[in-house]
């Protein structure tokens, strides 16, 4: 159980952060163990996010020990100044013999001090550990090469973007900065993992897989258009469907030259509440009630195969998704393929 406070913590002078952190551990004696597997920096320009992010770090730290740098940038502030706080997120580990703690350093950068973001980040990293940087909100057109090229994993959430075309363009530019070393992690893609697993399991069923080529219509119900589009892109890429537009009508073309129509319904509810495939004589779908942890799989018009199935929907809380992102260190080639498949639809 986490014992973290949701305050930014103990105010400290920026030049004395390391010394103050050292004191924090000295004062705790042998009862606490500092642990860290990564540096996790979170950048926000929304003051209200500071508390939410602190809570999120507290949750993540129970599964993924880290040094967290939480940066709140207030570009519009009239006065230019930088403030810092330190805190620790501790939880009982193992059989409860000891507390394991992750450090958090919170920065508030006002006015022009926002420009010193790279140096603030670089001087407070836990050495030798990878830097995962979660940029909350929109990327800026003017890229700071010094900052981006240092990042091992760049995290963002394309579900939050109002203009995904421009934002994805900037992501590609960041990716290219350091020879593609930076791993790009879209939380919007990660939150689809449970749905993708569920669909893969649905298609494991021999009755469903045998009808893959007969699909003529796909309906996806989602709470964010880009989430639905990414799922559509993945299904299209894996099925080798190509996007087409004819007389203003958009559809996909199968390798056999058949048309597949699609609908993306955006409505409040689960990230993906329905994914239905319709063939000429049969249909199959996974659907999820709001708040449920499972998809119900349904096969219709397939005679003997109509066994109902309950499939795990995976985790969908933000903290769980972030932990998944932090745990999966590799690049995401399927994401790149999925994105390419729906680029004209963004």
């Amino acid at each position, binding site marked *: 159980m986490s014992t973290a406070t949701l305050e930014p913590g103990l105010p400290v002078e920026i030049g004395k952060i390391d010394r103050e952190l050292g004191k924090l551990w000295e004062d705790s004696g042998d009862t606490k*163990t500092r*642990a860290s*597997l990564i540096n996790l920096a979170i950048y926000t320009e929304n003051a209200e996010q500071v508390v939410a992010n602190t809570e999120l770090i507290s949750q993540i730290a*129970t*599964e*993924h*020990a880290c040094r967290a740098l939480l940066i709140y940038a207030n570009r519009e502030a009239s006065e230019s100044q930088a403030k810092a706080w330190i805190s620790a997120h501790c*939880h009982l*580990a*193992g059989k409860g013999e*000891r507390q*394991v703690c992750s450090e958090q350093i919170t920065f508030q950068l006002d006015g022009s001090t926002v420009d010193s973001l790279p140096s603030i980040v670089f001087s407070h990293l836990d050495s030798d550990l990878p830097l995962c940087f979660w940029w909350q909100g929109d990327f800026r057109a003017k890229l700071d090469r010094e900052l981006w090229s240092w990042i091992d994993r760049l995290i963002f959430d394309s579900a939050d973007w109002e203009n995904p075309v421009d934002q994805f363009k900037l992501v590609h530019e960041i990716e290219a900065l350091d020879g593609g070393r930076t791993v790009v992690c879209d939380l919007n893609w990660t939150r689809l*993992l*449970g749905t*993708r*697993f*569920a*669909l*893969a*399991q649905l*298609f*494991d*069923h*021999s*009755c*469903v*897989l045998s009808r*893959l080529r007969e699909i003529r219509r796909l309906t996806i119900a989602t709470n964010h258009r880009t989430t639905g589009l990414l799922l559509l892109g993945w*299904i299209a890429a*894996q*099925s*080798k469907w190509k996007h087409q537009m004819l007389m203003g009508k958009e559809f996909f073309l199968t390798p056999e030259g058949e048309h597949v129509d699609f609908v993306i319904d955006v409505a409040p509810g689960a990230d993906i509440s329905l994914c239905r495939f319709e063939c000429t004589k049969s249909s199959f779908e996974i659907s999820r009630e709001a708040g449920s*942890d*499972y998809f119900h*799989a349904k096969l219709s018009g397939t005679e*003997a*195969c109509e*066994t*109902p*199935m*309950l*499939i*795990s*929907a*995976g985790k969908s809380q933000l903290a769980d998704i972030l932990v998944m992102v932090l*745990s999966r260190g*590799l690049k995401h*080639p*399927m994401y790149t393929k999925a994105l390419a498949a729906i680029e004209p639809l963004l």
Partner: protein
Amino acid sequence: MPDTTNDVNPFREGLSSRPLPAPCAVIIFGATGDLTHRKLVPALYNLAAEGALPPAVSVVGFARREKTDEVFREELEEAARKFSRQKINDELWSSFASSVFYHRSEFDNLEGYEALSKRLDELDAQRGTRGNRLFYLSAGPDQFPVILENLRKSGLNESKEGSWSRVIVEKPFGTDLPTAQILNNLVDEAFSEGDTYRIDHYLGKETAQNIMVLRFANAIFEHLWNAKYIHHVQITASEPLGVEGRAGYYDKSGALRDMVQNHLLQLLCLTAMEPPSGLDADSIRDEKVKVLKSLRPITGDNVRKYVVRSQYGAGAINGKRVAAYRDEQNVNPESVTETYVALQVNIDNWRWAGVPFFVRVGKRLPKAGTEIAIHFKGAPPVLFNAEGETIDDNVLVIRIQPDEGISLRMSAKMPGSSLRIEPVKMDFHYGTSFTKATPEAYERLLLDAMSGDATLFARRDEVEEAWKFVDALHEAWAQNDEDLTFYSAGTWGPTEADELLKRSGATWRRL
């Protein structure tokens, strides 16, 4: 190569870094037994809860007792609620239970297998499992021959085109080399080696799997992993428990057969093997077999020199008096079965020439723990290690259980104006760095068998080579039991075991 359905189901591509299990029917022989209730069904449920089990999987219990699907499901639910590491979710259990079936038959009744075959065909059609079958031999080992024979006679062992048929065999894989060979021949007649999965749950433990990662993903260790730098290796499996209701089996088996032949020799192989040419099952198992073939046989008089066997007498564990082994229920009062064994194993190959591997296992020892300790040679006798000074050698410890982790002992200067060197420990705890709940070994192993990945299962030649080594010790013991010593429960074993290490200038690690 692991069998996956990636090539047919395009939506599986890139979903996981490990092969994904294919939908199949899991048929458990001995379905009313303890293992099914305590381990197998909770493991399958946990896999379902994590979304790792294909929902189309069906579980068919095969046993002699009369009962319906419903009764079987109720019994399993009760057990799962007790033994599952995750809390039972009613909605998921209800869905999982609907995929569980009971098939009553005597093990020696061919008609029962033929009826099973028909039932599996029906389930395949309903659930889309494509004729994939995983047979789990969880019945008593004396039933294995008749089950295997009837699987063969009924054609259940044969896979249809595009599907597979596999068998998981629980230990013990025989009681010596001849019985292991007989069992292996029986398995061979029904299933190919590639479809045979001999389960050793030690290999399913995360830390056992991490031995290879530690060795071959960290360049710093492999350079030191040889006779030039390593003085000796200690492999320990200790437990405070006694025979705990297993007396009937244990009194015939003893520590050597129960633990050394399988678990500890597997750990030794992972520690001593050469880097495999690949991470596929056969590349790894080839290297393990090479280690087993390089073990210097211990025969004749050398058995007394290199092996210590002992039995616990009365004593105390955690302040509580416990009876002597011979006074335990169902144990022969004149039993000469060893509850403790320590041995010096020499590996006659280029890498390990002259490096003794000390292996010990025992019951009624003060503490539970399984670990591998690599003791490095000391620094040259100059400077801080000059004559008269005693500096502890470096020790790398891989803790398998409990508190899985890795620690490195080294020397450091104590703060102060005088030069005083003390041993310090760098300690990595899995539980601290990775707080994610570790899956049970059976979860991993069932998943691997469904995915066709045999890496963590023992191959026939591994099992037989291990028996060859162990049989020689038993043969010598059978000639003469005068070397059996006794130790008090709650102590670290007989003094003779200490002498074994003393000859090499070593002492047992204190756990």
